[in-house]
């Protein structure tokens, strides 16, 4: 029961561990650089400035991931650059790491001045992948093999190295996310790669292009070759903005039932928050979680069509026929949008019992509906209360319904979350 399907989970400490590794690496590199002195200092300074500027143009991706593609691309280019404007670059891996760290932190300080947070784990991951790329690629630069290859082969080699590094980045990001969200690790990796592969492909391509063009073109290649990436970044910014506006609006509109006196204040939001926690912990994909959130926010919308509010707004107290009617009415409203068909289905089936009779369970009920059903009933019992007795009592009551109303796996996950909240786990 405790760990579904034996999935590997990580703890909240993984983010801290990652940052610690990056910090140690930075300190070690800085020590080496301090002993050896900075080779080709002007180029190092130039890249510090470019990375810092790129860091200022950080974006928030849909799904809330913070990233600075331009800065990452410039760091990766610097890690691979064989020469610049005809001058061979002879710097070592510790210098690459130090330049990345100094540039990133300088940019972060600017952000801090604008009162925007610094995503330390993102910087830590960047440092680690840049070190890996420099460590893989730079030893080849001096080898005899490198001199014999055509530029196309080198370009392909760079592409492979960068792509592997960016996949590594996603894997590490998933480690952190799985730790904080308590999502199963495998699902977190899939979500991460799905969400980041497009922007990472553009970042990687830009890094390779810059590293290929700068040897002949000189330093000007660095700003010029970020133009395509800036365009990509702009499109992501617009997309992320409309996505968050959408969610914000649905959150706000979910309050119409409260303002109308049909449901208790905060009910829709509490149910959606709890449902999202349950969904993530049960290993739903990011997209499913988002639809779950929408459905949970709007699950009572059908009550608007009622002449008179149900006393107290509780759907637990109403007959199952009435609850089913409300679900159907709500689903009809959502279906009208023409774009939220699955959300409508989830809302429609939220009132259905998981065991309609004789011990058969009904697997046609979407998992999201089962989650909303349990979370809704839980919230009807607990409300805004923070008393742990009341919370635990509510969970016990849900357990009584395990053989009739609820999906036992949902109730188990819900129980685990509630026990964690009350400090009993």
């Amino acid at each position, binding site marked *: 029961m405790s760990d579904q399907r034996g999935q590997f989970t990580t703890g909240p400490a993984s983010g801290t561990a990652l940052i610690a590794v990056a910090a140690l690496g930075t300190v070690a590199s800085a020590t080496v650089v301090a002993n050896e002195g900075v080779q080709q200092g002007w180029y190092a300074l130039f890249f510090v400035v470019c990375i810092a500027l790129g860091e200022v143009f950080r974006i928030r991706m849909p799904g809330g991931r913070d990233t600075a593609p331009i800065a990452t691309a410039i760091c990766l280019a610097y890690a691979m650059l064989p020469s610049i*404007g*005809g001058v061979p670059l002879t710097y070592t891996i510790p210098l690459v790491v130090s330049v990345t760290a100094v540039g990133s932190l300088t940019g972060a300080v600017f952000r801090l001045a604008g009162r925007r947070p610094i995503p330390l784990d993102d910087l830590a991951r960047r440092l680690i992948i840049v070190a890996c790329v420099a460590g893989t690629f730079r030893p080849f630069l001096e080898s005899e093999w490198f001199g014999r290859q*055509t*530029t*196309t082969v080198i*370009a392909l080699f760079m*592409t492979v190295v960068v792509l592997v590094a960016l996949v590594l980045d996603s894997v590490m990001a998933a480690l952190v996310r799985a730790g904080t969200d308590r999502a199963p690790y495998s699902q977190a990796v899939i979500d991460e790669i799905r969400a980041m592969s*497009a*922007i990472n*492909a*553009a970042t*990687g*391509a830009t890094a*390779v*292009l810059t590293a*290929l*063009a700068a*040897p*002949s*073109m*000189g330093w*000007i*290649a660095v700003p*010029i070759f970020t*133009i*395509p990436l800036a*365009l*990509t970044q702009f*499109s*992501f910014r*617009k*997309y992320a903005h*409309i*996505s968050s*506006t*959408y969610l*914000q*609006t*649905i*959150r*706000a*509109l979910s*309050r*119409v*039932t409260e*303002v*109308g*006196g049909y449901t208790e204040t905060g009910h829709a939001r509490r149910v959606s928050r709890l449902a999202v926690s349950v969904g993530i912990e049960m290993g739903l994909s990011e997209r499913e979680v988002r639809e779950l959130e929408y459905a949970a926010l709007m699950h009572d*919308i059908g009550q*608007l*069509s*009622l*002449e*008179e*509010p149900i006393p107290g707004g509780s759907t637990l107290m109403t007959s199952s026929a009435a609850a089913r009617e409300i679900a159907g009415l709500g689903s009809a*409203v959502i279906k*009208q*949008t023409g*774009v*939220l068909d699955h959300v409508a289905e989830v809302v429609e089936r939220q009132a259905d019992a998981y065991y309609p009779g004789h011990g058969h369970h009904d697997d046609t009920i979407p998992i999201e509906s089962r989650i909303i059903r349990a979370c809704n009933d839980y919230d009807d019992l607990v409300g805004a209360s923070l008393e742990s007795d009341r919370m635990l009592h509510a969970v016990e009551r849900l357990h009584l319904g395990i053989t009739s109303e609820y999906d036992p796996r949902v109730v188990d996950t819900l129980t685990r979350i509630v026990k964690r909240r009350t400090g009993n786990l």
Partner: protein
Amino acid sequence: MQALPMPARLFITAVVSSAIAVLGLAIPRVTDWGAVAVLLAVVVASEYLTLSLGRSVSGVQVSISVTAPMVIGAVFLLGPWGAAAVGAGCWLQFTRDTPLVKVLFNGAQVTLSGWLAGWIYLAFGGTAPIDSGAFPGVLIPITMVLVSYELINGAFVVGYISLANRVAPARVWRGMLAESALAYFAYNIFGLLLAVVWGAGVGPFSVVLLLVPLAVARWVFALFAREREAYEATIRSFIQAVETKDAYTRGHSERVAKASLMIGRTMNVRDDRLETLRFAGMLHDVGKLGVPTKVLQKAGKLTEEEFAAIQLHPVRGREITRELEFLGEAIIAIYHHHERIDGRGYPLGLVGDDIPEFARMIAVADAFDSMTTTRSYRGARSVDEAVEELIKWKGTQFDAEMVEAMIEALAAEPWQPTDTSALFVGPQNNVPNYASDDDDPTAAEVLASHRPSAENPRPAGEKSDNYSTGRRGESS
């Protein structure tokens, strides 16, 4: 095509035959056919790589294709003859609905633009393939190519449009420049990047590398467009859910949004604010959800409490929308859309210009739509009658300026009264109950005089005035 005037036909014939001649001369002169083939393939496939940037301010669909960057890349890499050969790829862009003349002309003008820009590049000391080690001196021929390609290309297109539609060339030119000249210029830099990387020895693989950020951007723009549509659809059906509580207001919110936009446009409200105004119009009655259905649908005289319940709806509307940062001004407009210029409105009894601009617009739009829609106690009034009513109440209920703007907008854009009488079957049908319908100016007058506080509206300076900031300035 048969409709094209004679000068346009001559122009097209001349352009197409010169392009064919240039192409004929180019074939023996092209040296690197491999490079031409790769770039040509991208041009032919460019339909799948076109980046749609959405609608511009004036409603023109702005999209940029990879054709120009490929031709410009060919200029830097192969010189005039190679650029002409790559540009001819436009003739192979098969699209279902583009007429043959357009395909022919477009291919010809791209071929000629690339060819001419190629000569300009050489004339200013450029070399093909580009010597990217020669920075920054090589910037002069590069800039010449980027600018001249855009100018030559623009001249061809302007010629075509002005001759085909018999419009003065200067007007077409201005329109095009305003649209997207800068975006195109920035985009053409891709051609330069391509030539540099290709010339550095990477070869055709550089096309792949360069197209990745573009393809990703294109994909994300498509996602964005879809998400925005979904968003609009969701808001719309929510509004419909609100309106089902109150049969005679079906479609009201969308029509109020439309009428508010008509007023806003006449008053030269900026585009981004118009969007907010539209949302304010759509959501202005969202607070009615907070009014018990039986009050909204009640036939006969309302009690004191029931009046109070109805008058709460702007407050409830603000409660619901308060957290939507992007709505900004709209939230204030929703809150104040039942204020009256003479101070006898609600919820605060603001007077004159203290009422936010958008609220004054929506008040007029709201009343106008309500009058031109069937109500349970009367049929829809004609537009003329409604306008008369607006004029009657301007200066007391309505801002005179907004009423004038509505009238002006109606002259340009006709309005169809909405007959919803089919929706009313039942006992409430013939009961005169305008008292609860406070969107109707006559009823609003009854309501205002009914209110105990109506006789002494609050003086302008007295109320808490968090709402009056940030709404002036733009319109003056």
